[in-house]
């Protein structure tokens, strides 16, 4: 039962109306602004897909969002491998986010790398009552003794820090001086700040500006080349940054830094020497990219390494900032991988052609992965951002088809109802959503963690992406959910 675009639109409108009926009036009015159907060309190029975003979640609705701490410790800072990131406050935040994001790295954990460890000040009642600054000082001293190869420390504030009036900036400054100018970064990413992870990204970006860039030794030596680029906003989930880096290097560029998956403090410090910043996750790292553009004159370009169509366009776009050598390099890379991508499509497209997908993810993925699905003949019929802003929805215009259902900061209830009624062939979202839909008999892939697979970026990643979507949708288990006697 294939619907026309107009039928889809009216079905979506009816569906939105239906889900809103469950809410108390005030909440219905609020949520109505976050739900919509994309109308191609209706609002011109600046269209935000017709939804409001980046505002407070409604209490009690089961938002999927996290907090500023998750955005800073979990996303931006956490993957910097040779620094120690202290989850400052009670034990829980660090515990639940401990090694959960699969930011791959090479290093000897506990000796020169610390990503998959949980350093916490484990606040007790007395720390709340009397303040935690003394404890924090002592923690830094103990870190210096027990983890002597660490290259720096960040203090990732949990909710109580900002409420009890601790001065983590003063502690960090004092200890940095004491340790001969060591990088120690106080981050005010308390979970109650802002409306989602998003403010945590911004705060973390700002601390890199203030505590890394602004403290750089002006005499720092770095042998640059005309082809130096930095990968910004790739967290190397399942190795994504690696399968991206390899393409950039193959086209002749020199990747001097990875932000922040498998990244190091030295790479952060090198970045102001880049000729171009290539930005994958716009949402979480546009701030620092803009800053580097303003302060160091480094241009930045967004790219998309999901699926061959977008990879090809992105490689050319990146190359357009360089000379013919790199432009030829891009063509060479595209040509080199053509046989592989054709083979992937030949194998999987017939198994996936015409299948429909509903997404709900964070960062860049609600739009960026659409092209990869389309390369496999699949259609994304609904999408939304966990913590997107207006500029994300504006960028989504170019990706979604007319009539696509759009849901911002979707509630558990809405998502369940939308999927129940639309019955897509696949849902791509997070761990909290995974089992809801699998119980409903709907194939699912986690699109934050790649469901423990990956990488999905780059040409090597596309083969894995295709295999995984196929194994989800064409899993024989979905034929078994109904008992035969019923």
């Amino acid at each position, binding site marked *: 039962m294939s619907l026309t675009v107009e039928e889809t639109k009216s079905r979506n409108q009816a569906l939105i109306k239906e889900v809103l009926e469950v809410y108390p009036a005030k909440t219905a009015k609020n949520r109505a602004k976050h739900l919509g159907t994309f109308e191609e060309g209706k609002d011109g190029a600046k269209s935000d897909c017709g939804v409001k975003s980046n505002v407070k979640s409604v209490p009690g609705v089961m938002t999927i969002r996290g907090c500023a701490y998750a955005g800073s410790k979990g996303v931006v800072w956490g993957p910097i491998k040779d620094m120690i990131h202290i989850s400052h406050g*009670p034990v829980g935040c660090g515990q*639940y986010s401990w090694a959960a994001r699969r930011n791959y790295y090479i290093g000897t954990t506990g000796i020169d790398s610390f990503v998959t460890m949980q350093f916490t000040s484990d606040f007790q009642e007395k720390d709340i009552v009397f303040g935690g600054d003394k404890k924090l000082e002592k923690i830094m001293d103990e870190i210096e003794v027990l983890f002597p190869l660490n290259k720096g420390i960040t203090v990732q504030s949990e909710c109580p820090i900002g409420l009890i009036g601790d001065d983590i900036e003063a502690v960090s400054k004092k200890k940095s001086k004491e340790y001969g100018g060591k990088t120690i970064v106080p981050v005010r990413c308390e979970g109650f700040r802002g409306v989602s992870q998003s403010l945590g990204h911004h705060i973390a970006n700002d601390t890199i500006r203030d505590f890394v860039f602004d403290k750089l030794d002006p005499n720092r030596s770095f042998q640059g080349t005309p082809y130096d680029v930095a990968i910004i906003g790739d967290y190397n989930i399942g190795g994504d940054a690696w399968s991206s880096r390899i393409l950039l290097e193959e086209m002749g560029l020199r990747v001097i830094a990875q932000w922040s998956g498998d990244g190091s403090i030295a790479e952060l410090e090198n970045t102001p020497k880049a000729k171009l910043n290539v930005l994958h996750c716009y949402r979480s790292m546009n701030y620092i990219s803009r800053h580097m553009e303003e302060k160091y004159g480094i241009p930045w370009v967004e790219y998309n390494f999901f699926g061959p169509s977008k990879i090809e366009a992105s490689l050319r776009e990146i190359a357009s900032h360089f000379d013919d050598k790199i432009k030829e390099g891009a063509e060479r890379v595209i040509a080199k991988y053509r046989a592989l991508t054709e083979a992937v499509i030949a194998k999987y497209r017939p198994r996936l052609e015409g299948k429909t997908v509903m997404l709900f993810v964070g960062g860049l993925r609600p739009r960026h992965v659409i092209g990869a699905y389309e390369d496999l003949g699949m259609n994304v019929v609904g999408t939304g951002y966990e913590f997107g802003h207006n500029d994300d929805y504006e960028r989504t215009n170019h990706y979604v088809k007319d009539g696509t259902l759009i849901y911002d900061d979707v509630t558990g209830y809405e998502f369940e109802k939308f999927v129940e009624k639309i019955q897509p062939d696949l849902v791509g979202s997070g761990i909290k959503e995974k089992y*809801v839909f699998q119980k409903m008999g709907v194939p699912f892939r986690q699109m934050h963690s790649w469901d423990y697979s990956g990488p999905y970026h780059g040409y090597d990643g596309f083969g894995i992406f295709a295999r995984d979507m196929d194994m989800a949708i064409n899993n024989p288990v979905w034929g078994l959910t109904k008992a035969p006697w019923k």
Partner: protein
Amino acid sequence: MTQNTANVLDHFNLFREPEYVEMLENKKKNFEDAHPVEKVEEIRDWTKSWEYREQNFAREALTVNPAKACQPLGAVFAAVGFEGTLPFVHGSQGCVAYYRSHFSRHFKEPSSCVSSSMTEDAAVFGGLNNMIDGLANAYAMYKPKMIAVSTTCMAEVIGDDLKGFIATAKLKGSVPEDFDVPHAHTPAFVGSHVTGYDNTMRGILTHFWEGKERTPNEKINFIGGFDGYTVGNLREVKRMFGLMGVDYTILSDNSDVWDTPADGEFRMYDGGTTLEDTKAALHAKATISMQEFSTEKTLTYTANTGQEVVALNHPVGVAATDKFLMEVARITGKPVPLALEKERGRLVDAIADSSAHIHGKKFALYGDPDLMLGLTAFLLELGAEPVHILSTNGGKEWEIKVQALLDSSPFGKACHVYANKDLWHMRSLLFTEPVDFLIGNTYGKYLERDTGTPLIRIGFPIFDRHHYHRYPVWGYQGGLNVLVWILDKIFDEMDRTTNVPAKTDFSFDIIR
């Protein structure tokens, strides 16, 4: 280029291919300003030393790789065990995203819970409006039979008055006046997840029992405590009670909600202790808790109502199960039936069959306080020798109790107990005083990697192995499961260390 469609290479193998290995070596060499390999080796060796251990144990402020979570996690765990109950955590919303993810990763199940989504303005003015709107929305959308309120540290630091807030929300019509909204303060900076379970259980019982007249009857109440094996364990307990003909109420039965079928329907709520049974549980003659340290305040409250209270310590194995069943028999007057006696005999038989492989093996174990007591007792029963027993959320009282248990057996002589220590302490222990096997949760795999001590996964959370939570560790059947998990690892290790042709494979026996 090595990627191919016939055999798609993902992260396991892709990055071992030469072009990636070379790329990553160059990255390190040219851009990371990495420490020299020799230096890394030197420090790595130093971390294995007694000297490092002493400095590590001298820590007073820093916690590294703890084996505990925070109170509200336990609150959510307890709340979902009641019929149609939606946990509502008052405070920042990110916390709730974390609890839900954490449980979903362990149980491979949906985990429903809402937050009052407090932000900066609520930090200044308090979260009353969040409570009013939150309860109204949750009630309208998710149609619960009960909403169980707990708190994040944010709400605790600013001192929100839950009782007053809920009363105001009811006045404002968020939920009907007679709708059940029990509450518990669950500050993350006090205790751990087991404390949160305790506070929430007490909060729910208080809500239903306070001010009610108790008319004792012949039923018993059963409380499991915070338990990663709750699905398997509670079903096993029900089976055993069924065999005994005991009339019982399990308080917080989350065995169904965390084991729902994939049959086309998402069940936000499933099973659970009915609210009627919860109310009526006041009249029970006794309450048995399987985990003393997870139910301290609950049991005090329960005892004050006039019920007899029995506190066990996560009983695992023969003697511990004997004690559990005999307590049930004593309280109810129902004898332990022949069927269970036969199961007991079968567990004893299994131990007799296998103990030669376990006898004298050295174990390190860490986890929640009661689980440690239960597992230690079983190890002693098997003739194994516990060497290090560690609990991040175990205190002085726990330490004394474990020591007493160790003192009761010749197999416990060489063992030390470590309260309030973390897995970085355990790392030093394993390097300086090595053991044969480590028992712990998923995070123990980092210790296994670093120290080479084979890990037997028993505890919470288990993220990287599937479905063990569906198996009981309680009862004689549960003891058998634990025995098999321990034996499997022992045999796997035997095979792994005897499989080198012409070197060690004379011991690569097919009969063991």
